[in-house]
């Protein structure tokens, strides 16, 4: 696993037309690594009948609410935790 717990990461914004499990609301946003889960088969190729290998490392990444929806007033502060595969993670610029 390339990244360590506590490290900041930015979610890639690249276009991806097929099935993928990276929600749009975190693309281009910066969060921090909370957990290193394990490696799992890649849903982007499994969705089309492939075996999904090689397995890809999966991380739990957390985001500050105000970083995701800066223009929306909130009822309170909270963090959002999302499972993200390593090939969607980049070092923050």
């Amino acid at each position: 696993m390339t990244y360590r717990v506590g490290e900041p990461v930015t979610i890639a914004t690249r276009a991806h037309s097929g099935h993928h499990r990276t929600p749009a609301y975190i693309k281009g946003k910066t969060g921090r690594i909370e957990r290193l889960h394990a490696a799992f088969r890649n849903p982007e190729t499994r969705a089309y009948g492939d075996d999904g290998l090689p397995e890809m490392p999966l991380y739990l990444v957390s985001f500050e609410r105000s970083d995701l929806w800066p223009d929306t007033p909130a009822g309170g502060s909270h963090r959002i935790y999302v499972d993200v595969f390593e090939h969607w993670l980049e070092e923050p610029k």
Partner: protein
Amino acid sequence: MSAHDHDHMPITNGHEPAAAMRARALEELLVAKGVLRAEEIRAGIDWLVSRTPADGARLIARAWVDPEFKQRLLADARSAALELGLDPGPSPVVVALENTEVVHHMIVCTLCSCYPRALLGPPPAWYKSLPYRSRAVSDPHGVLAEFGLEIPDDVELRVLDSTADIRYLVIPRRPPGTDQLSEEQLAALVTRDSMIGVAQPSAPALA
């Protein structure tokens, strides 16, 4: 041509919803192409509908009475479920998250309806609804208020979006006034919604 020896119209009540028709067409194709046998599909559905939140509640009640078990549950919920003889389901990793005086967790799947079905049974309809899936991440305080749950400002609110292979389960706080209850009585207080993180466990009945 149907899977057995004669053609016939599908057995429906004549008012089949579009989603059900699509599911049936997919099922027939899977069987016709030899990907799955009809018995396997039926067995899978039987397993799904046989699961109930009572299994999750047993895990929580044990964690409330046994601090060492709680640590094992937090470290590896799948193994902890197996230890109690429960079926943790096909997901390779189940993660339990503990609610405390200072942290509250709630679970959502914004992309579809990922849910710890093995331990909680089928997800409620609202869990799969677009309003819950979108608002749980953007306005969880508002959603929780609609469930009747106020999260004080000094409590850190964490929303878990289960987007991949991990299944999350909330360990709710043990209600006050339950010191004298047995593990079985405690399990009866652990509701499905409290393990999703949108409610507290039930209050004990007054003796």
